[in-house]
């Protein structure tokens, strides 16, 4: 017990998911995740207490106790209950890759494989459903995420989620749409997640409709003007091409 306590009292910072969006190797194991083994043990033991005790220190110490650590082990988490939020966001994001039915569906003869767009929608919905168990406590999580020092990791996690969804859906674009796609999915997800905290409808039907409308808005805007970045970039080039097609010898 004594050694355990000593290890636990050394405070460690939780890292940002910075390992993301940098070279992803298919020939090497993935780099370690943002949590140490001890942190993971305590946090995963805490997670079942969230529906009852919320994103609070009480939950953390209950989890620590369940995992066989003393109460003081919550000192391990300098950001306090926010670690629970990070754990939830991280584990739910990592769980998306197991939806193989969506990611690589079996296509029967004559059937049509779903496109990238519909996979994105389905995975976004699955991620929202990942909040189902804790949704009545989610406003606590949102309050923690809104603390100034917690904003950067929270925004980073949102970006990582969008990146994961586009990647798992098979999107391969690597032009400026890379950014607009992630930005618009992040905003759709964040808005739908907030909507869901007030949704009392059966099976979150209203959240589903809300999310579908947000995707619809983006499509409408997208087809009308295109993304601003692309518009700027292709302006010079297409201007040249238009003039050339009109017979200008330039």
């Amino acid at each position, binding site marked *: 017990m004594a050694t355990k306590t000593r290890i636990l009292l050394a405070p460690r910072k939780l890292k940002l998911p910075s*390992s*993301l*969006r*940098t*070279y*992803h*190797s*298919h*020939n*090497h*194991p*993935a*780099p*370690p995740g943002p949590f140490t083994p001890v942190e993971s043990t305590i946090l995963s033991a805490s997670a079942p207490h969230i529906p009852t005790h919320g994103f609070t220190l009480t939950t953390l110490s209950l989890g620590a106790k369940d995992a066989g650590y003393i109460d003081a082990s919550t000192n391990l988490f300098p950001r306090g209950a926010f670690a629970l939020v990070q754990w939830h966001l991280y584990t739910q994001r*990592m769980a998306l*890759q*197991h939806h*193989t039915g969506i*990611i*690589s569906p079996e296509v029967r003869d004559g059937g049509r494989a779903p496109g990238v767009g519909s996979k994105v929608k389905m995975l976004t919905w699955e991620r929202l459903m990942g909040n189902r168990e804790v949704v009545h406590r989610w406003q606590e999580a949102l309050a923690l995420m809104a603390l100034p020092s917690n904003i950067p990791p929270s925004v980073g996690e949102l970006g990582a989620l969008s*990146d994961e969804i586009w*990647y*798992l*859906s*098979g*999107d*391969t*674009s*690597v*032009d*400026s749409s*890379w*950014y607009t796609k992630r930005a618009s999915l992040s905003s759709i997800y964040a808005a739908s997640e907030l909507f869901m905290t007030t949704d009392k409808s059966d099976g979150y039907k209203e959240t589903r409709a809300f999310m579908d409308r947000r995707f619809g808005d983006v499509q409408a805007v997208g087809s009308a003007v295109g993304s601003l*970045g*692309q518009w*700027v*970039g*292709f*302006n*010079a*080039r297409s201007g*040249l091409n238009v003039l*050339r097609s009109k017979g200008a*010898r*330039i």
Partner: protein
Amino acid sequence: MALFSAFRPVFSSHSLPVYDFLAPSLFQIHRAPRSIRHLSTTPQRHTLSNFQNDSPSTAPRTPKTGTEATSNPASTSKPLTQAQRDFLSRALRVNQTGELAAVLIYAAQTPVIVASHPHLRPLMKHMYDQEAGHFVTWNALLSRHRVRPTALYPVWTMAATVLGWGTAVMGREAAMACTEAVETVIGGHYNEQVGGLLEIFKEMEAEGVEVGEDLRVLVESVRRIRDEELEHLDHALENDAQKAVPHELLTGVIRAGCRGAIWVSERV
């Protein structure tokens, strides 16, 4: 993976020609025997199908989930370090940006140049096609390795188009001087990158980490593309790049611009 090795020359880590990045001048670099000079009057030798074989884009790219990707790593392997992954993502990003620019420069130059010098059509087409092949190669690798493209994509798109069109309007010599300046910097850049990659391989081998198929293919792609860039440099010199007036100013400015662009796109 089998498709990858189809275009990869015979290669083993024991036979790495490790010294090529130490070559003091771009002109003394060992050339692959196939990179015979293409004179401007030679008919175009590369066809589109050539590129398709040449680029990894033909490899089926079904997105692998994290587990799928990690469940089957080389047995003795360890994760890449943060520094190695940063180097690789910066390298892929800057390569893609460079080839985006190259494609746009040639696309903007070609109609202007060909209008006044019809005999240059095959050469311009040949160089454009090669650039397009390079661009496809890097695009495929960026998405395969989840590397973000440069945030300044629209800026480079605009800048490259303006540069290509501007130099073409100044005449054949200026356009070729543009190619000369760009290819000098790009050739040097790719060369340094081969050096950096071999450095990483050494690190990995010392640590007992498998280099892996992807990185071997990567270094081969950089070498092949570098040789093609240097071939473009030869074409430019054969076509009186140095007669452009004012040659030193023009190439100096473009070279400085390219170096700045590389510096920025590695980071942003």
